[in-house]
């Protein structure tokens, strides 16, 4: 393409343009963030202070009820005994498992030659690319209580009675299946990101460590991990955010959508309150709580990260 030249005199001086350029480039993302993120968040905070039911959704009018939704929420034993426990325990277990597995895969990948590496990376990308809904249905199908592969195998081996066992009704096994699902779809991101980091670690560091007599574990702990600390921080923060707000993978499971069931986490509970029971004010209060919890966790992580950076 031939370069186009403006025939008009420039409206701004060169310096003015320079100063404007970053802002010009930032306008689209800022606009998108404002419209798609800040607006809905503001609306949810507003909703959480209101008595907002189906009738209000229709009329558009609602009453301000102060902290009433939050008081109801925080005094509900269901929050403390079920929902919060599910959300936190699941997030911790899933994040640790995802990061550890992702790291191991990344270490494996870094030792491979280019061609095998491309093949393995492509394979794990398939797990990553699987949409959450289809992925969840595949897991439900694998774990089908009567006909599933796992049930058939366990019954064949005599581990489970021929009558079968409904693991979807057992909180531990329910979340074990969710964890499997989440780790399966989450580890490729960690592995690929860490692999990119691993390839930048200078070989000399490992050679020096080897000469000093460091074994594999010591080389990882004293060379790889400190060098890649920022990368680890990023994958951990992101995994935490994803695992805290996991929704489809729980909601679609048998028993995952029944109000008052012991399988709900904060995200699903918020949805069931809002759309199942048409209590949008209460649902919003739960969503605000989830957001605050996530912000808190993220701030703690980020502070830890920056403190480490200052020390070095």
């Amino acid at each position, binding site marked *: 393409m031939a*370069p*186009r030249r*403006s025939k008009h005199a*420039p409206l701004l001086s*060169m310096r003015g*343009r*320079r100063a*404007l*350029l970053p*802002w*010009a*480039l930032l*306008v*689209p993302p800022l*606009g*998108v963030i404002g*419209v798609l993120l800040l607006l809905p968040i503001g609306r949810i905070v507003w909703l959480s202070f209101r008595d907002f*039911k*189906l*009738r209000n*959704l*229709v*009329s558009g009018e609602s009453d301000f009820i102060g902290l009433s939704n939050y008081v109801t929420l925080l005094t509900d034993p269901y929050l403390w005994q079920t929902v919060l426990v599910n959300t936190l325990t699941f997030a911790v277990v899933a994040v640790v498992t995802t990061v550890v597995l992702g790291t191991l895969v990344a270490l494996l990948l870094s030792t491979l030659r280019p061609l095998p590496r491309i093949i393995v990376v492509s394979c794990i990308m398939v797990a990553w690319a699987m949409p959450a809904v289809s992925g969840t249905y595949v897991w439900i199908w694998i774990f*089908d*209580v*009567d*006909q599933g592969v796992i049930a058939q195998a366990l019954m064949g081996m005599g581990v489970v009675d021929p*009558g*079968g*066992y*409904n693991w*979807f*009704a057992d909180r531990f096994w329910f979340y074990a299946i969710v964890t499997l699902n989440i780790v399966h779809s989450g580890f490729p991101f960690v592995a690929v990101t860490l692999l990119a980091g691993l390839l930048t670690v200078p070989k000399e560091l490992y050679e020096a460590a080897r000469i000093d007599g460091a074994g594999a574990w010591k080389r990882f702990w004293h060379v790889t991990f400190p060098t890649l600390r920022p990368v680890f921080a990023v994958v951990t923060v992101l995994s935490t955010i994803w695992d805290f707000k996991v929704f489809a993978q729980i909601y679609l499971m*048998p*028993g995952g*959508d*029944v*109000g*008052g*069931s012991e399988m709900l986490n904060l995200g699903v509970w918020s949805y069931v309150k*809002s*759309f*199942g*029971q*048409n209590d949008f004010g209460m649902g919003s209060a739960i969503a605000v709580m989830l957001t605050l919890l996530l912000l808190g966790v993220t701030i703690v992580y980020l502070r830890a990260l920056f403190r480490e950076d200052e020390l070095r």
Partner: protein
Amino acid sequence: MARRRVHQYLPLPAASLALVLAATACGGGDGGGDTDTLQVWIMEGTNPDATSFFDEVGTAFEEDNGIGVEVEFVPWQDAQDKISTAIAGDTLPDVVELGTTFTPEYADAGVLHDLSGYIDDPSRFQQEMYEMGVADDAAYGVPWYASIRSIIYRKDIFEEHGHEEPANWEELRDTALDLAEAEEDMIAFPVPGDAQYSVMPWIWGGGGEVAVEEADGTWSSTIDSPEGRAGVEFFTDLALEDDLSTTGAVNWNEIDVMEALSDEQAIMAISNSSNPKAIIENNPDLEDRLGVFVLPGQEDGYTESFAGGSLLSVFEGTGNEEAAWRYVDLLTNGEYFERWGEESGFFPAGVEEIEGYAESEDPLVQPFATQLLEAGKSTPAVPAWSQVEAEGVIVKMQQDILNGNASVEEATDTAAETIENILNEGN
């Protein structure tokens, strides 16, 4: 070179501003007022494929009114979310099919158009269903079809082992026990966990009430009375004690139950009147091998079963209310009213039409008609009832018992208490 770049990209601020404006503009001006086509939401679940029926109705409507019709099929489970979202986003359709149990809530919320001015003769509709759409003298829905649940069974298997249709609960249990032994690989009587309308008959049949209004206007539930418990216990014991069901059935809804029948896994199951056609559509081999019997009474007579169905409603404020009504009228009056019944297996919700079915010769239709006319029962016609369903109170009770997480006593206690709380808080 770098300078050239800056120069070339100068129009960026304007471009990006335009982009942002374009992005934000998408939010507005989407809802209602579109008179070119009529938007219709029809529910889909355990009925046979309805596409060709609605294509034909749409063509007929367009010929008479010059307005095209766009029908969208919505799975029952998604209906509520979809309607809420559409209300919030102002993207409601013009006509919607609403289940009887959900109509009072939407009528109460003020989202539906009052059709009382259009309906010339309300008495020609099944009255219990018509009442579901009535609030303060306004009619927010037109009864479209009634559905009822009885028991579909494998006639060939019954005959092979010399069994008759059972006449009371004990006979039902004995028949199932015997068939379970004779057909080891089959499920004699699935006891589903995620199908509340399959649980209600046993509560009623035992002598309990899911919810009943007291003289002072409060609601009480007697699921936890000895009678209610006896019914629930009988049903769940078919799975827990007699092993006539399968462990996985705890997670089954009515669609899964129907699939168990059409996959030739189950011998008999509580099923909807629209199921025989859908089952034969799925598995033509079962033609002439199915039978239906009315839910037998605990001792004799019949056990009451949940009579549901759908009303057609028109949303308020779409600007198309007049045309929407004409479409509703086309479906609930005359030819298409009856044809939908014949094609779907549901019953047209008109008094005359239903009575016609009671004399039906069709063994897959007549027992359902008897059940509907003599032993049909509905849930309370109050807005708060839909909360009981949305919260899955009866589903949770049933699943807790089947999973062994609660005894019948504990689970029925919790369910009765929750139902009373919801219904009494809502009024």
